């Protein structure tokens, strides 16, 4: 009859106690391509409807031998467990009250006897179409509900996994405060804090292109790389280089991650910052911005290795104060006039020196936009070094730090020698750390060795091979000068510049010891001169730290070889 019908033949139940009329109706409907089932009384019709699910329409005569059509209607609506097919009532009665009664019992349509066959055909067709349409709609509704449930379930699972990943990779660190609000259930912003084997804080605030799930996916590779490289003891430069490499390779060209990456080095009181594509971060003390760290680089995941610039800014921070960084979501939220919050307003709030900068900024932002909900992901972070009980300060604060090497741990020695450009390119401390962890040495021992090696290597490179005067740092502007000079001298390394590291565990000695020694091809420096420096002076801190961690330290003349001995706790 119609397209809807052609898919599946439809079945009509004809209920009439008049055998001849029943047969006539069936033959007529069959001629229209419909399947028919006959019932000759109330009881039989009821049974057929109960048995057969596949009745699509009922033609029901009012006067049945054992009851009326309305009796059937009542029993159908009373105990129906499944949907009742539409019913067309056939009767001689034209009384409006009677018709009303029929409709209130739930019939779909009505035909007066004698039956006009072409009218019947039209009504059947119309009803069947609407039934088919209803079936289709309810089927689609069910499908839609199913998809919605699936999507919600998927999202919930993905969100759980994403948050788990973040949770696994980030640490709660005293002195680090973050404020994050995402515009959808996934955030394209992340803030991660992690301490290195030397106990220094590494922090990353990152913002991926766009927001929601696609942004979250972009940022995921960055999370685990940052975490594992910090844990291995890498410095900021190789970390940002690796992040960029990974994101360039694994994400499409129009996807990238702006990031503010910070290393708080408590031993020297230095802050190392890499800002690629993020709003200017500030060092703030008592409502004054003492230093700005503007974005000097493109975001991560854009430039090729050879174009990428991993240069880090170094800043010696003041005793009080904090570093404040944020994502551009904060700047770009606009009010109904299209006027964005802007850097000017951020600075105004900072300079009002509020007790809680994050809360103050958010209420200022809400006041500005007049809305409680934000369009983009917004994140902020505050790092307060004076509140951080981490880094070498914690190691040196108590009785110093000791470790234990299990009795019977076999003798081993490990070392390497580097020359020329490799001295600049190769990060030795992470290698040492990895090796010792691989051997299965206790965590404290690994950490002590890592700290000692870090200080020895950095002394050997800076003051030995590069012959940099640490006094330079104390001068005005000396700080930047020092790092510029360091960079330029690193570029001039030749094969004659050599650095040697050896680590040896000697279990046979009467007092088993672990010896770490570093030798360089520099002229050597006078340890006596270094010792005379007061501890307040930062440059001598490296040696001071080594002395605090080792049981014996020897500087071998002319001062280009240093040897530290660690004894295991018995």
């Amino acid at each position, binding site marked *: 009859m119609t397209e809807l019908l052609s898919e599946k033949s439809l079945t009509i139940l004809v209920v009439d106690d008049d055998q001849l009329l029943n047969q006539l109706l069936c033959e007529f409907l069959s001629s229209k391509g419909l399947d028919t089932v006959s019932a000759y009384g109330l009881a039989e019709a009821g049974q057929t409807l109960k048995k057969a699910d596949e009745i699509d329409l009922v033609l029901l005569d009012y006067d049945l031998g054992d009851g009326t059509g309305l009796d059937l209607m009542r029993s159908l609506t009373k105990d129906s467990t499944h949907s009742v097919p539409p019913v067309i009532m056939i009767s001689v009665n034209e009384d409006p009250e009677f018709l009303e009664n029929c409709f209130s019992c739930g019939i779909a349509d009505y035909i007066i006897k004698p039956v006009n066959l072409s009218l019947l055909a039209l009504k059947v067709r119309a009803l069947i179409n609407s039934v088919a349409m209803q079936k289709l709609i309810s089927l689609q509704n069910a499908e839609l509900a199913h998809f919605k449930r699936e999507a919600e379930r998927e999202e919930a699972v993905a969100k759980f996994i994403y948050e788990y990943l973040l949770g696994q990779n980030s640490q709660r660190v005293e002195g680090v405060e973050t404020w994050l609000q995402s515009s959808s259930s996934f955030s394209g912003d992340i803030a991660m804090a992690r301490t290195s084997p030397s106990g220094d804080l590494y922090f990353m605030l990152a*913002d991926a292109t*766009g927001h929601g799930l696609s942004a979250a996916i972009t940022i995921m590779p960055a999370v685990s790389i940052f975490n594992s490289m910090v844990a291995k003891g890498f410095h900021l430069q190789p970390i940002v280089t690796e992040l960029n490499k990974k994101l360039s390779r694994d994400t499409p*060209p129009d996807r990238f991650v*702006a990031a503010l990456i910070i290393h708080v080095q408590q031993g020297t009181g230095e802050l190392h910052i890499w800002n690629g*594509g993020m709003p200017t971060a500030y060092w703030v003390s008592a409502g004054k911005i003492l230093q700005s760290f*503007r*974005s000097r680089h493109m975001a991560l995941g854009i*430039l090729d290795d050879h174009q990428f610039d991993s240069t880090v800014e170094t800043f010696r921070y003041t005793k009080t104060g904090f570093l404040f960084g944020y994502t*551009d979501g904060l700047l770009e939220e606009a009010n109904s006039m299209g006027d964005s919050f*802007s850097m000017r307003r951020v600075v105004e709030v900072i300079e009002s020196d509020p007790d809680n900068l994050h809360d103050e900024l958010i209420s200022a932002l809400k006041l500005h936009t007049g809305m409680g909900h934000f369009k983009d992901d917004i994140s902020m972070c505050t790092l307060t070094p004076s509140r951080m009980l981490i880094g070498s300060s914690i190691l040196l604060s108590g009785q110093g730090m000791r470790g234990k090497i299990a009795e019977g741990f076999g003798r081993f020695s490990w070392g390497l020698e580097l020359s020329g450009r490799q001295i600049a390119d190769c990060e030795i401390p992470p290698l040492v750390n990895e090796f010792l962890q691989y051997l299965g040495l206790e965590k404290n021992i690994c950490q002590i060795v890592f700290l000692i090696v870090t200080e020895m290597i950095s002394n050997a490179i800076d003051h030995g091979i590069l012959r940099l005067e640490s006094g330079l740092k104390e001068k005005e502007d000396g700080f930047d000068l020092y790092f510029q000079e360091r960079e330029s001298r690193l570029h001039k390394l030749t094969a004659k510049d050599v650095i040697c590291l050896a680590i040896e565990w000697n279990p046979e000695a009467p007092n088993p010891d672990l010896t770490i020694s570093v030798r360089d091809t520099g002229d050597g420096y006078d340890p006596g001169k270094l010792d005379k420096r007061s501890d307040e002076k930062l440059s001598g801190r490296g040696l001071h730290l080594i002395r605090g961690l080792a049981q014996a330290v020897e500087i071998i003349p002319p001062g280009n070889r240093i040897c530290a001995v660690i004894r295991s706790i018995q």
Partner: protein
Amino acid sequence: MSERAVVVLPMRFDYGYHKDFQKQCASCIDNPVINEIVFDFGQVDYLDSAALGMMMMWQRRASAANKKMYIKGAKGATAQILDMANMQRIFEYMT
């Protein structure tokens, strides 16, 4: 012979503009006569990171086709955003 094409960007340069942007960039890159493409930011007063992403993507294609891309006329907040992203590293600025 070399020719310069100018892509005039809308007031609001975000992902909503990507179809137009794509069409214009593609036709410039496919056209062998054109070897310089200028993004005119004169009218732009809003741009988001998706826009930066699109620029980056087309810059890559342009440089693969040996064509140069320029930024022109950015001001106010737009200039600030381009600056923050350090776009001058891969786009030349034109006055």
